[in-house]
């Protein structure tokens, strides 16, 4: 779907591949590759045998999906009710809109022209039901149009996969000798229903046939296009500092947002320089907001990153990721509550220090101490699964365990004394060991187990020490000792 300037010439066989169960499989192929006999969803290595000079690129399915979502909104030019259908299709409910384009035939021609201008090839069909239109667009003639009383006759010659069935069901129907939709429709209904009584809708030919014939309703539920919010100020002559204009832009944008009842989570400030370059600054918020002062403050000391060049004469401020926000008054005096203030604090800190450095700790399911604690970005709104801590743990943990020199009475026992950061700590009391085995599904082979001790030295400081490995575990030499944390 994505157009790019470096597309290979059409005579070079080329495929897009995705990861399959046994290596890459073919996701899409160009015309030359299809002529060479490549099949969809076959393994790339097998198809290379057929066509040695095959060019393979990895498919960007996420990008395709996003492009299709944009195309759904773009297709509203023909009718107001559009929705994506699978990974490669669009469904348009053109009821009552086709006469605006001079009839259904003229509308299909217009669609094909417009899509080809975008660089897209399209198979088009018009039918009274979703299922029939799907079948005609993919398996029917060129720009086939079907009226309500012709559905059965027009679908009859099409092959069975045109009913949107899964591969296994298609194979089963072929083994039963049912190759066309007509043959399937001529079957007595009762044995067919009985045969597929347990099958779900995508694998049930009876239900799929009913959908295509209009006996089973299949409404099109459309997605709503979010409005775009944008404020701009054109300047009479180029300037170098956007700060004086920022407050007015924020107020303008927030007034637009408030009027439609929306809040934004991203803000993009762009300055258009006189030499044709565009310089942008982006900020994000943790909760949708339309408070002009708050949004303006997020740009604090970020404006310096704009490279003004020889000056700029157009500033735009655009709201991204808009969401509907209701006006909520939680307190009688109209003041803001703690949650809102907290969200704003996170926004300000994130804007100033970066999202990587403003985090929330969460507990993870692991016995290995450094993996028992994870960090999520504070600006996202992810709720982590709660897990339990069963044993006593230190309140501080060193970033990396630090190796210490240890004196011990028995090799497997607790240390008597250790030297850490050039200081000698004599151990007076200890608790342990608590053995923590390596997680073999994560750790490298040969990782040694750890025996943790809570040890108190002669001045009363409490440390969390561990011995890595045992003397005769065959995974290296003598075990080493580390300090990993401190107790209160």
């Amino acid at each position: 779907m994505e157009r790019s300037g470096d597309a290979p010439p059409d005579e070079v066989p080329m495929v897009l591949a995705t990861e399959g169960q046994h290596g890459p499989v073919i996701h899409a192929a160009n015309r030359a590759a299809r002529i060479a006999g490549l099949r969809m969803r076959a393994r790339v290595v097998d198809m290379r045998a057929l066509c040695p000079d095959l060019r393979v690129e990895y498919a960007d399915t996420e990008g395709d999906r996003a492009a299709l979502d944009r195309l759904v909104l773009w297709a509203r030019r023909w009718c107001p009710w559009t929705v994506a259908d699978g990974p490669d299709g669009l469904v348009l409910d053109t009821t009552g809109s086709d006469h605006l384009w001079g009839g259904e035939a003229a509308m299909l021609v217009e669609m094909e022209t417009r899509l080809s201008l975008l660089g897209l090839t399209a198979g088009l069909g018009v039918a009274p039901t979703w299922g029939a239109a799907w079948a005609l667009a993919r398996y029917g003639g060129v720009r086939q149009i079907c009226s309500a009383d012709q559905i059965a006759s027009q679908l009859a010659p099409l092959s069975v996969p045109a009913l949107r069935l899964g591969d296994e069901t298609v194979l089963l129907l072929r083994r039963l000798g049912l190759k066309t939709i007509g043959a399937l429709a001529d079957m007595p209904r009762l044995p067919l229903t009985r045969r597929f009584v347990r099958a779900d809708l995508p694998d049930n030919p009876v239900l799929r046939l009913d959908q295509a014939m209009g006996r089973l309703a299949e409404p099109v539920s459309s997605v709503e296009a979010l409005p775009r919010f944008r404020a701009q100020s054109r300047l009479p002559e180029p300037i170098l500092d956007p700060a004086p204009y920022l407050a007015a832009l924020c107020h303008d944008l927030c007034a637009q947002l408030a009027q439609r009842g929306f809040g934004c989570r991203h803000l993009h400030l762009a300055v258009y320089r006189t030499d044709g370059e565009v310089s942008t600054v982006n900020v994000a918020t943790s909760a949708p907001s339309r408070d002009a002062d708050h949004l303006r403050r997020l740009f604090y000391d970020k404006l310096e990153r704009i490279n003004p060049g020889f000056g700029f004469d157009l500033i735009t401020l655009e709201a991204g990721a808009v969401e509907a926000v209701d006006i909520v008054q939680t307190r009688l005096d109209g003041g803001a509550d703690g949650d809102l203030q907290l969200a704003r604090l996170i926004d300000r800190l994130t804007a100033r220090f970066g999202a990587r450095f403003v985090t929330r700790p969460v507990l993870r399911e692991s016995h290995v101490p450094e993996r028992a604690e994870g960090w999520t970005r504070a600006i996202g709104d992810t709720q982590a699964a709660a897990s339990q801590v069963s044993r006593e743990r230190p309140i501080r943990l060193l970033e990396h365990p630090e190796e210490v020199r240890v004196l011990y009475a028995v090799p497997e026992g607790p240390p008597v004394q250790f030297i850490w950061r050039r200081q000698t700590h004599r151990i007076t009391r200890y608790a342990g060991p608590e053995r923590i085995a390596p997680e073999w599904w994560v750790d490298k082979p040969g990782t040694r187990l750890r025996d943790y001790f809570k040890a108190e030295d002669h001045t009363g400081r409490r440390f969390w020490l561990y011995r890595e490995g045992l003397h005769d575990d065959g995974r290296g030499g003598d075990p080493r000792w580390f300090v990993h944390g401190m107790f209160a």
Partner: protein
Amino acid sequence: MQCMSYLFASRQSANQNQLDTRTIGQSRSLSEMFPESAVDAGAVGFILSRIQRSAQPVLWVQDRLSGKEAGRFYLPGLNRRWPILRVDVTRAVDVLLAMEDGLRCKGLAAVIGEVWGEPPALGFTATKRLALRSEANGIPCWLIRRATNPDLSAARERWRVASMPSAPHPHDPVAPGDPQWRVDLFRSRHSRPGTWVARYDSAADRVDFSAPFRDGAVAESDGAIRRRAAG
């Protein structure tokens, strides 16, 4: 021994009769904490025990050197007291900026900052700003300062905390039990400075303060009070 400790306890209570031990370290203002050494987590444990359990988060700001030298807090050990919002910064200036920003927000349970050494940004003015901001919103603010000496500061309370050998473990004679700290409030604006032995009772989640036991001359007034009590 018991007699002596009783004697000192009575003196302490006479000296500190206007100070309720439940309010020690509970001021809703800026407090500075000077741990005895960087590797001593007792000071942090004392601060944690002084911030009340709540559903509101605690903002924890740390500069890079503190994190390297003294480690970072460890959530499994904090016993789910409050949610935490952690900010990692490189410079001490940024620690102060983030703390001040946090003190502006009423939705926090407390603000804790850790600064290593004596950065030029952390002067009297900076601490005064923090103190005023903290008092304006009534949010406790703790500034942990390591590898430095207490110099000029506007902190309303200044503490020095060192770990002491822990209380006996109830079941295991060789294991350390509940932590004990020697707590020294050496400068205080609203209450009287003092020195205590704080024992954290992990079962009840509270801190018991008692007078420190020390060898020294008995003050003049001690006998008088005792005589009056006896007579």
